[in-house]
């Protein structure tokens, strides 16, 4: 089972070492990890996707909360949050396939951000299912490179 954890941390020296080290030292796996600034320059937000059963998740959240630099931790289940991931990929195209690739990009509202004779660089944003479907559809054309941000998430709040 996959969980998305949103972790507000002190923007201090070594905080990533502590978080990453906690996972490796205790044998937990990180699927994706994203770190970025927040509105407050003194803090950063990490979005961590972890895989594990309830017992693993319970330990992960408790061990994270125990770190002095962890200010707040939210465990998002599906209905509490919105999440997105951004993927950049370079897809091989030939004259006869370029049109089809561009058509799929249209359907997925993906952006073509660089065009070469034999490939297209594409930017696509979405949730898990959209991203994996898009990659699945691009695979037959040949993905020569791909980079993903990992998931970022935001709590839903009805003011």
């Amino acid at each position, binding site marked *: 089972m996959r969980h998305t954890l949103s972790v507000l941390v002190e923007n201090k020296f*070594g905080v990533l*070492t502590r978080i990453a080290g906690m996972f490796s030292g205790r044998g937990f796996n990180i699927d994706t990890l994203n770190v970025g600034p927040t509105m407050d320059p003194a803090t950063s937000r990490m979005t961590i996707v972890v895989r594990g059963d309830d017992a693993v998740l*319970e*330990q992960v959240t*408790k*061990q994270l909360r*125990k*770190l*002095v630099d962890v200010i707040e931790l939210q465990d998002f289940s599906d209905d509490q949050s919105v999440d997105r991931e951004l993927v950049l990929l370079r897809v091989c195209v030939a004259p006869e396939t370029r049109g089809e690739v561009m058509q799929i990009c249209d359907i997925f509202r993906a952006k073509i951000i660089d065009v070469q004779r034999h490939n297209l660089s594409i930017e696509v944003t979405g949730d898990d299912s959209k991203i994996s479907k898009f990659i699945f559809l691009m695979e037959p054309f040949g993905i020569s490179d791909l980079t993903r941000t990992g998931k970022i998430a935001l709590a839903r709040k009805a003011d």
Partner: protein
Amino acid sequence: MSHSTSSSHPATHAAVDRGEPMSGADILVTCLEREGVDTIFAYPGGASMHMHQALTRSKTIRTLLPRHEQGGGFSAEGYARVTGKAGVVMATSGPGATNLVTCIADAYLDSIPLIAITGQVPQHMIGKGAFQETDVFSVTAQVVKHNYLVLDVNDIPRIVKEAFHIAQTGRPGPVLIDIPKNIQQAITRPVFPAEVHLRGYDPIRRADDVALNELIGLIGQAKKPMLYVGGGVISGEASAALKEFALRTQIPVASTLMGIGCFPETHPLSLRWLGMHGTVYANNAVNEADLLIAVGVRFDDRVTGKISEFAKHGTIVHIEIDESEINKNKHVRLPILSDVKDALVRLNHLLDRAGKKPLDHAELTQFDAFPEWYKQIAEWRDAFPFTYDDTPDAIQPQYAIELLYELTKGEAIITTGVGQHQMWAGQYYKFDEPRTFVTSAGLGSMGFGYPAAIGAKVAHPDKQVVDIDGDGSFLMNVQELALAHIEKIAAKALILNNQWLGMVVQWEDRFYNSNRGHTFLGDPDDLNRIYPNYIDICKGFGVPCERVIHKKDLRAAMQRMLDSKEAYVLDVMVPYTEHVLPMIPSGATYKDVIYKGRQKLEAGSGL
């Protein structure tokens, strides 16, 4: 002004406590003084000598020079373990810092407040592979409660205050402060904060009333309740509250190795300690209890054996300050996240209101709350005492410890190394007070005993402090005899010398058909010679030492050791054929206990 104490740096105005201009090193020492530090174990080097210069200007801090950083770290731990105050150790960068890592990991696993201060290469050299450079921040990250690399001299007062706060509150632990040399040398006017502000750290945990009442209800229904208590009771200063709780509820008590002394072991409700080499009756009682109240413990594998079988039929309640320990190794029915003292004091209050007064008796069976249970426990206790076959001339290690108990009237502080002697020390010396049994339990660090004894003796100069050690463990930090001699610290060492790594030998006997895998510590070319010769070694250090081979000589020799006003080593030759019993093989259950005999076992996958 660098050696000034808090009284001599007047605040410039009410809100800001600002000192005179001084170097980072002097600021550090001033901060240590303000935290009440009276002793620091510190070994200088290029990246830390500026701090040593500042230490020479301190009027209140005694700086003790260990002869190896690991010795210094264990001494600081010994100091912390007997006082509850943070022990402080300092080392230089690179090898100095890496030599502290074992001590820091040791303090981490046993939840001991330790402040480790390391010098670091100057900031402009960091990452360049400079001489004696190690990224000690990253190296220690997984074995500290928290750590710091100081990046600005103005941060020192805040960081030191935070470090002591973190180390000594909640579940205690080690905190490392790494200070680059240029920051030690930088001059500033320090601002000393009055309070700590850490929004990610709130150590205060108080049980909720519902849970405490639920526990009282469970006790009311129980027929075979047990208390399983650990180091958290000692670090939480909750021994008195625990005793009152046990006497009000009349529930028998078994401790972990770390919990030894938190409940008086000579009390009739005490079943001594449980686990791999604990008493059969404690293990039986904990595993067959219908209600197990676990207080300040972590369900360690040396306690539980096969975790799925541990206390399988009982309702488990876990009172614990560290949320991550709850349901970590064992799922419990009623978790109570709380400072253990707070929980026990409030439970005592609830019991008092329910009319449960503390009652004391001289015998277990005189207690009346759970008569059938006491009868069962008394039967186990009578059938399975700690026992060994004594010999007329050869000195059995267990006998030596019993004799030490007799001669010290049970009032000494005992430290240990790691191995067979450590288990026998726990078995044959009885502890009635917290903070009197000082042992490396979680990490199991050989070489812990003698430096820890030095730290304990420095903290309690009026108490008898004896390191019960093995010849293997003692040799690992033997250089600390120099510190004891030069600084006139009368820490005693009782070496149970069998010329072997006894605990590994025991496992070889049990699991590996007695095939010896580098467990002999003596001289294979001359088996009649005792090697190394501790009398000669001690002579070199200027420490008196006696060797005892015959039982008839032991009592007088031990008395001479105890009477000595200076450090003293008693080298007691014991047979290496003894096994520590009882023994629950790792990964097994209490029903698999070996009480007597030398049967061979299958080497399992356990440790």
